[in-house]
């Protein structure tokens, strides 16, 4: 079923210093593309008083300085920009990133469950998960955590009933049709199928996160041995993080 996108975007106040532009109420590539395109367009327009933009699945948060602009003024400006977006050819300015993942075993304690759940072998799950290119819909939850979509229906799996108190850094998980990567150790209920040695977040770097909304991520299956080699290279700062295309 095709997810819904509103006929026209909704503008919603968010307290005294922000507003939301909402394009839909479901996860959809179309709504997310509109969010990201508007994000780009507002950045380019450099509107007075706009302090920060936060793109998420289906809406864009615009944080502003109430001493420099107002809700009404901004809605007026942004509507103008939004209406001129060429909705037929939305170009998202994103990079392509390949994330190496060691699937299964200690690194992916839920891989066997996901396989069993769908009557597949673990190898088939790995193939299905690593075959696709995923859109980065948004970054949230913890610093640098990318929400990626959407996994093939054959491997979409509900969250754990009781979340784990600690999911190790680098863990790659599935929650329904979403997949994501834990940049740091955190509590979480996603089904963990593998782990990457790549460091996704570093507050000493600019930008601090490897992945941003609008990027494209592809997973690559690696062996436990390769994991160790890459892990060491990452520690030494020698692993090429981006495979630019």
């Amino acid at each position, binding site marked *: 079923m095709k997810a819904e996108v509103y006929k026209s975007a909704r503008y*919603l*106040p*968010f*307290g*005294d*210093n*922000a507003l*939301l532009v*909402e394009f839909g*109420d*479901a*996860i959809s590539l179309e709504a997310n593309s509109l969010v990201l395109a508007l994000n780009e367009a507002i950045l380019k327009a450099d509107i007075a008083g706009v*302090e*920060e*933009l*936060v*793109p*998420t*699945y*289906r*809406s864009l*948060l615009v*944080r502003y300085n*109430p*001493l420099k602009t*107002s*809700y009404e003024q901004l809605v007026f400006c942004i509507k103008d920009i939004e209406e001129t977006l060429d909705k037929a050819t939305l170009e998202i300015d994103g990079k392509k990133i390949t994330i190496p993942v060691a699937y299964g075993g200690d690194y992916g304690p839920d891989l066997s469950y996901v396989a069993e759940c769908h009557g597949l072998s673990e190898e088939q799950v790995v193939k299905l998960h690593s075959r696709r290119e995923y859109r980065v819909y*948004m*970054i*949230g*939850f*913890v*610093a*640098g*955590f990318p*929400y990626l979509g959407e996994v093939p229906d054959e491997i979409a799996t509900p969250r754990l009933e009781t979340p784990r108190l600690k999911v190790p850094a680098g863990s790659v998980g599935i929650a329904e049709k979403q997949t994501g990567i834990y940049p*740091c150790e955190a509590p979480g209920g996603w089904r963990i199928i593998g782990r990457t040695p790549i460091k996704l*977040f570093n*507050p*000493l770097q*600019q*930008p*601090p*996160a490897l992945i*941003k*909304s609008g990027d494209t991520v592809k997973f690559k299956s690696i062996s436990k041995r390769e994991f160790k080699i890459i892990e060491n290279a990452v520690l030494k700062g020698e692993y090429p993080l981006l495979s630019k295309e």
Partner: protein
Amino acid sequence: MATFRVINPGLFTTVQDLGRLGYLKYGVPISGAMDTFSFIAANLLVANDPNDACLEITLIGPEMQVLAKTQIAITGGVASPKINGQNAQMWETLDVEEGDVISFGKIYGGCRSYLSVRGGINTPLLLGSRSAYVRGMFGGINGRQLKAGDMIEAFAKPVLKTRLSMPTELVPKFTNQFTAHVVLGPQDDMFTEKGVQTFFSNPYKVSFEADRMGYRLEGPVIEHKTKADIVSDALLPGAVQVPKNGQPILIMRDAQTTGGYPKIAVVISPDVSLLGQAKPNDIVEFSKITLKQAREKSCEYFKLLKNLRGMLVKSK
């Protein structure tokens, strides 16, 4: 060179400035002082920049030895500060000498106090801020709260000849009752009319699950129409989320940057700062205002913060 040595860290003392702006899109919270007004006042009382890093003290203050002569100011929740065991004034410039011991009583009237030091605290600038984001384990002193033995360094600046104090009428008085002015939305349409009315006509108690990330509040159940979740969208401090159990959660400065519960309303900036002084068992009442009123109130507040330096007086 270090300015203070921490003898006892207190309950939860962190280095904070005005926070990390511009990184929400990477999932990095704003962080920064919970009570912006008291924080800025602390800096201005030692003629610092408003954004210089201070200590944010929570409920039980630290004990610290002064290692080099400097000036400090203490603001925020009533913290009963002492220098060498003698009561010291809040909201004014204080001189401290090498060997002095700064200590605190329990904080009453509020939840958080600020200790500024002339020159500002020097911790690494990470993503434009020195604030500790303890959950993310970065910023401040090694990404954590203070512990005994920590050395705190301040930037060197000449001692002030004129000591400053805050005029009494500008010193906020914190009680255990808070009124939070809110703008309805962005997802108020997911609640029944009765639910919205419940939210505005009842007091909510701050539970013990209250920290820099947010406060879980307890009170009459706020009724959703049907669903109690949304496709996750962005959060800012002040947002009031209501999960399925109908009990509101007030989002504060270290909260995650996105969330999947509908937000019935958002508290305006001046009141988010005020609520930085709310502690468990305190009462919060929500009062609905229009966007226009919100703008007036917040402009007045931001102007006050801008003009505060000029409003300080010379200490007697």
